[in-house]
């Protein structure tokens, strides 16, 4: 589509406000909704949608930012691998600024490590082909959305017979995180906006059992302001009618079954594993790791960094923020000393992180200004 049309369609003030008015008309009481995906948090804050919604709708920001939930020990492993002279360490840009225990990939690069930003893991495979005498490691982080290309890079490396390519895997999954949030005794979330991109890959059939088990309605939701409002309207309608379903408010992109070809690639390369989530802790079967037949591509085995263990800054309340228990403003470190330039925790790093989104777009509340 012509992106200049966005401002006249999915970002159009009149249409968005009309949809919000529909929500206002059916509201009878306050509701707490969680948007799972960091991309949605970013979009909400960037468009200022949170200010236009009725006060009864509280949006809490979920753990769906892959940068934010990647555990500290994995960052430390990345730093240990990237510091090796034979390694070209490739990563999505956001990961470079995430603080490990002592430093980040940016400062490691400044002191001479070969750390490169790539836009796709397939670029890292190309780098491995071009540098046969070097070890090329890709930091394979992300939710279900990044899993197909990350898996594809392993398949490609295998097909090419590359012996110098490996992946440091930190793949995590949405449904187990939702279980963790919903089963916590202090949970406040009453409805979910499901991550549109994740559902594009995986479909949304897996969510109905969760919705029914915890009695929370959900809507598959997109990323433009109008998409988000439609998702919210869908969930609020179910809440007000005391119904529990999984609705698709992003049908122009998402199919119920998802993308079977992408799922097949994931299944070939990855298998379910327990994963640590930064700020949340260990969640069983909450991620993917390489299947044994691909263990030759496992950077953790290749570089023997399995024993690295670390812990977080005591000031940072990232865990509570990622579970929707607290807002960034509730953190004593927010804005001072914790800023995007000097992040104490991961949610302040990524543009998708709740703290960074608040810092960039919404400091009006914390300063009492307009």
């Amino acid at each position: 589509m012509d992106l200049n049309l966005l401002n006249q369609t999915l970002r159009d003030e009149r249409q968005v406000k009309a949809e919000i008015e529909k929500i206002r008309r059916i509201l009878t009481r306050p509701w707490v909704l969680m948007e799972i995906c960091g991309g949605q948090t970013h979009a909400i804050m960037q468009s200022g949608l949170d200010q236009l919604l009725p006060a009864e709708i509280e949006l809490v920001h979920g753990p769906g930012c892959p940068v934010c939930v990647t555990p500290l020990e994995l960052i430390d492993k990345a730093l240990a691998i990237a510091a090796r002279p034979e390694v070209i360490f490739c990563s999505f840009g956001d990961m470079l600024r995430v603080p490990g225990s002592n430093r980040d990939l940016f400062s490691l690069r400044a002191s001479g490590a070969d750390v490169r930003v790539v836009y796709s893991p397939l670029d890292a495979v190309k780098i491995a082909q071009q540098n046969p005498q070097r070890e090329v490691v890709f930091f394979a982080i992300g939710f279900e959305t990044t899993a197909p290309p990350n898996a594809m890079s392993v398949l490609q490396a295998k097909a090419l017979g590359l012996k110098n390519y490996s992946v440091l895997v930190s793949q995590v999954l949405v449904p187990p995180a939702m279980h963790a949030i919903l089963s916590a005794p202090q949970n406040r979330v009453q409805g979910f906006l499901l991550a549109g991109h994740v559902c594009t890959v995986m479909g949304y059939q897996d969510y109905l059992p969760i919705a029914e088990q915890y009695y929370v309605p959900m809507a598959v939701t997109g990323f433009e302001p109008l998409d988000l409002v439609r998702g919210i309207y869908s969930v609020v309608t179910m809440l007000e009618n005391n119904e529990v379903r999984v609705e698709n408010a992003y049908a122009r992109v998402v199919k119920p079954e998802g993308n079977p070809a992408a799922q097949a690639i994931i299944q070939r390369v990855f298998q379910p594993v327990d994963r640590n989530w930064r700020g949340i802790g260990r969640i069983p079967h909450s991620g993917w790791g390489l299947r044994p037949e691909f263990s030759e591509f496992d950077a953790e085995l290749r570089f023997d960094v399995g024993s690295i263990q670390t812990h977080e800054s005591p000031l940072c309340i990232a865990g509570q923020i990622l579970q929707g228990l607290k807002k960034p403003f509730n953190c004593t470190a927010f804005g001072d000393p914790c800023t995007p330039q000097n992040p104490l925790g991961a949610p302040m790093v990524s543009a998708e992180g709740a703290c960074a989104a608040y810092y960039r777009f919404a400091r009006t509340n914390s300063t009492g200004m307009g």
Partner: protein
Amino acid sequence: MPDSSFPAMQGPVCPLPLKHDDQIILGHGSGGRLTHDLIKNIFLPYLSSPPLLQADDFARLNKPDGEVIISTDCHIVSPLFFPGGDIGRLAVCGTVNDIAVSGAQPLYLTAGFILEEGLPIHTLVRILESMRAAAHEAGIQIVAGDTKVVEKGKADGVFITTTGLGFLPQGRTINGHQAQPGDVILVSGSVGDHGIAVLAERGELGFSTQIQSDVAPLNGLIQELLAAAPHTHVLRDPTRGGLATTLNEIAAQSQVGMLLHENAIPIQPAVRAACEMLGFDPLYIANEGKVIAIVPPQEAEAALQAMRRHPYGNLASRIGEVTSDFNGRVLLKTSIGATRVLDMLAGEILPRIC
């Protein structure tokens, strides 16, 4: 008739030194014969001006009336050539624009070159041709220069530092401290073109685009703007950090707030598309041929029309107002009618993951 019984007399012959006229070698920076030849044969044909042709270590210049404006800028860009420009044009325009936003007319430029060993001479010539063309367009003389050569791997082809001199008419005060509540904020055209053009040329987008860098000397446009709006308060070119960062700097300097209207900010469709795909915000992408003008409301329309009449300003737009609220902050009225903070760029621009 040659007598074939005599072998041709060759005699002892020293091998002639290679001519090294195809690439830069360390000797080009030695200060000796090679340096002189480089300057005489390569630089001067392109960058000649009366002071340069004097071949002294200094330039002696006439000074018109008014205050002196001086500015220095270092230029590094990879790749050296990109759609719409190159490091030579950038080096001239960057400094010309820094002088021009003071309201002064830039007149003289000096240029320092750091050349990397192995740089092809024809590459250097293309850069010098481009500098000549940009200097001609801007109406300035390049009056002094220096060249050093560093070992291969110690620089990225060419680095160019330029220093510009301009003269400011008496009584004109245009700087970042002058913005006043009620002023109107104008921008001379679409934002983000340069940064995206360079990224695309690096092959970092993963797709090709038709985006051209906007690198251009703005002194002509600015002089016409000032003729139409003589009480202009602030002019600044939003280079690194983009429109958002530059406006934040001005808001902080002037101790005022600003309110921008997202829908009014001109962005080319291809730039918007590239930014959407990569998770960049075009308001933080570098420009090299745009100027922000902050003018009193009664001169806003005249300023806008003056910019639009100029070839580099045909997409000029009114994008916001200076306010007495939100001191030191820039706020953005988003396309859906909400208002949010538009902060400075924090660190490097990083693509989002999903």
